[in-house]
């Protein structure tokens, strides 16, 4: 996608449709951040397609003045892969949730990531089924009491980052719905990255799972319970910027700068481009209270995309091909004449 000199504003990407999410829903903030990001990215709106599955967040395409496709449950990755492979010139965004992407659409999700189709995949993770009114999802914490788990779930949740890396993913980032500045920056980076860019958004469902991320993302605690990773920077966090992460044997460890002789130099320097996902994998899986939860871009490794490879292959075959049109094809091989 080429960037143009024309300046856009967030408003340019708003459709005329009334936004119907519940008041207080985290989706409003995501919509706003995405529109801001698009204004900065500068791709004209006719070259953008938003594709979604089913769920509250999947209403997203209706609110964007771009091309939009509201698909069926779980299949957004497949539809979006089709759109992008058909026309790699388009900027294709997939909007999905924890149920849509990881339960019913789990298969399509991992395969889109494995192929590295150049999609920007925003996964709204509220750890609950909202549209069906409050059943547990594949990311609900073990023991969560919901309408279909009145005595608490007995199953282990998925970790989005772990799945992405396990599926050979090359880009994974995490943000919080209400953090518009961080989110906007991450969406811009996700769009610029060539390949499947998965962004997990810790999103709040104000009705069925209100405050599920507050323990980590609440205003009072977030500085100490999250770490915003920056490429090339040491891993520092905390209200007073006095905590950090070091590698202790084969594990990450939280340390306090100044204690036990630890200085900033001992901290790990974040490298999003490292192809070996070892440390990125550990970062993606950090959970409170043992660790701060990692935000920002965790992994961003260059690689060939599926869609461009498909078209390159076609071009290279066509260059050498003897068959140039269907008439050539029909007459190729063994034929005979009847006079």
């Amino acid at each position, binding site marked *: 996608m080429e960037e143009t000199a024309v300046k856009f504003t967030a408003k340019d990407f708003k*459709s005329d*449709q009334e936004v119907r999410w519940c008041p207080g829903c985290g989706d409003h903030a995501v919509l706003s951040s995405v529109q801001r990001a698009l204004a900065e990215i500068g791709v*004209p*709106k*006719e*070259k*953008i*397609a938003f*594709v*979604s599955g*089913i769920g509250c967040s999947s209403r997203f*395409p*209706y609110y*964007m*003045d771009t*091309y*939009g*496709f*509201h*698909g*069926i449950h779980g*299949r957004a*990755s*497949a*539809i979006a*892969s*089709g*759109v*992008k*492979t*058909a*026309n790699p*010139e*388009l900027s294709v965004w997939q909007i999905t949730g924890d149920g849509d992407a990881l339960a019913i659409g789990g*298969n*399509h999700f991992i*395969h889109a990531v494995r192929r590295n189709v150049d999609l920007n995949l925003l996964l709204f993770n509220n750890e609950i089924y909202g549209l069906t009114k409050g059943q547990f999802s594949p990311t609900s914490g073990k023991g969560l009491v919901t309408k279909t788990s009145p005595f608490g779930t007995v199953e282990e949740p998925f970790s989005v980052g772990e799945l992405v890396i396990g599926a050979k993913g090359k880009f994974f980032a995490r943000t919080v719905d209400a953090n518009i500045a961080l989110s906007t920056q991450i969406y811009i980076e996700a769009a610029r990255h060539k390949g499947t860019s998965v962004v997990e958004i810790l999103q709040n469902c104000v009705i069925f799972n209100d405050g599920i991320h507050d323990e980590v993302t609440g205003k009072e605690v977030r500085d100490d319970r999250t770490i915003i990773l920056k490429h090339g920077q040491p891993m520092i966090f905390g209200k007073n910027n006095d905590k950090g992460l070091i590698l202790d044997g084969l594990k990450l460890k939280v340390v306090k700068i100044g204690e036990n002789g630890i200085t900033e130099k001992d901290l790990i320097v974040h490298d999003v481009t490292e192809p070996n996902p070892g440390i990125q994998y550990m970062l993606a899986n950090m959970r409170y209270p043992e660790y701060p939860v990692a935000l920002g871009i965790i992994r961003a490794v260059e690689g060939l995309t599926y869609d461009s490879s*498909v*078209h390159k*292959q*076609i071009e290279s*075959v*066509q260059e050498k*091909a*003897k*068959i*140039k*049109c*269907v*008439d050539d*094809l*029909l*007459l190729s*091989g*063994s*034929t*005979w*004449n*009847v*006079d």
Partner: protein
Amino acid sequence: MGRKADVIVREEVVIRFSGDSGDGMQLTGTLFSDTAALFGNDVSTFPDYPAEIRAPQGSVGGVSGFTVHLGHSEVNTPGDFSDVLIAMNPAAIRANAAWVKEGGTVIYDQDNFTEKNIEKAGYKTDPIKEEKLESYNIIAAPISTLVKEALKDLGLDPKTVLRTKNMFALGMVYWLFDRSLNYTEVFFDKKFSHKPSIAEANKIALRAGYYYAETIEALTPVYKILPAPIAKGTYRNINGNQATAWGFIAAAEKAGLKAFIGSYPITPATGILEEMSARKDLGVISFQAEDEIAGICTAIGASFAGKLAITTTSGPGLALKSEAIGLAVMTELPIVIVDVQRGGPSTGLPTKTEQADLLQALYGRNGECPVVVIAASTPTDCFDYAYDAARMALEHMTPVLLLTDSYLANGTEPWKIPAMKELREIKPRFANKDELPFIPYKRDEERLARSWAIPGVPGLQHRIGGLEKNTLGNVSYLPENHEKMVKIRAEKVARVVNEIPDLEVQGDKKGELLLVGWGGSYGFIITAFRELLAEGYNVSFVNFNYINPLPGNVKEVFRSFKRIVVCELNLGQFADYLRMKHQEFTYHQINKVQGIPFTINDIKEKCIKMLEEK
């Protein structure tokens, strides 16, 4: 080469090659049918192989067969009963004895008729005697011994040597039918250009078989089938799956679009995906998806993005695609879904043929969900119906479901190659970029088709999806709007009737009995019809290729016959559909659900009985 044997000129002959699934029978049959077609015979073939890639050696379940029917006049079926059976082992006798014409020729590899193999095939003594074939023209040839002898100087390992047994047998058949070895020899030179010793071994075995047949002179009678009087033109052999793939590629070129296929491998439809994947030279984008659902969903995405979108499958896969077909109906995007039918339900009989997906194709979706349904009826007309399916999808903005079947997919026929300029125009309904604002569900009055706005075009940004919409493309829960849209979608498909051909009756336009067929059983029914007619019976025949909507003249055709007899390879799905659509008629049925096509006699005997009942 002198020919002392009697030469019998025949109108048509059916030859069946049969052996273990590792014996190379499919290749043997294909080489023979190509040679016959090059000579100018009309040919129809049918491969018949087990689902297991290699079933236990020597077992009846592992028998792989290939039938070639060649004739001096038009040939419509691979034939029921063979004039010549080539049996590479006792199991092949077991599987085919009942299908050899009385007094026919059976050639078998004597060396393979060991006690163990005889027992494996379920015989106690001599299979020929047990099957009461002694009075037939039986040729026991020690094929294994002879190829070993013929190839002894090449220094090949014994396994490679024995792999040429099929070529020895083929050589015998070439002599029997007085055919040139040239095509097959050239084939081996090309195929094994990097392994000249293998090419040489196959050619030596082929010639050895040919000379052996000449030497023993036991192969009487020698059959001669003159070339068929077929229309002038350039011909090639083609099977149904290849013809289907080429039909789509031709439609894409005609419409000025790129073809996109999103599919998941499934027997017997995989050949279409393989052929289209090989056609990168013509710009086909192929996407082998992670499952059937992703196959159609990538195709829907590609259709949204402006490509001629295809997804191919067989019955179980069609079941998985149902929800997404509904999405294509709701978004009114052009897409073609191919169902190469096989024996069902569930995994059923993956390599066998059946026509039992008809009702699934018509109705197997939630909600009021009409799609155009059409069916091909010969391997070569798969090209025409694939082409027309694409045309209808693009011009009417609707999903089109094309039904073929395992028999068509794998069967080959000579095909008179069309020129692209002869094919009907295809005009996709692109949205007019000057007519703003773009209204997604605004329709043309004639077809009720909406316009196709492709991402990338400035100003036409719009949103579509599975939720019910109003004309403006906005989500609507209004009761009246839903009913209106449901009716419009149904009417849009119904109006396709205005642009499809009327039924054509073969035989008299009125009479005692009308044979009715649809799709792939065409060849068997028309052959039965011709034979009945030749025997003086008052019968006519009509074949349906357009199923939904039905052609406009059904009532007119049906009301001129005393009896309507619907023949299909299921328990009566098309008959039931006709009962629903045209209740005023009584429908008789001839059905078969054995995973194999009709025989001509299946149909003839029942018709004669009905005609005699009066």
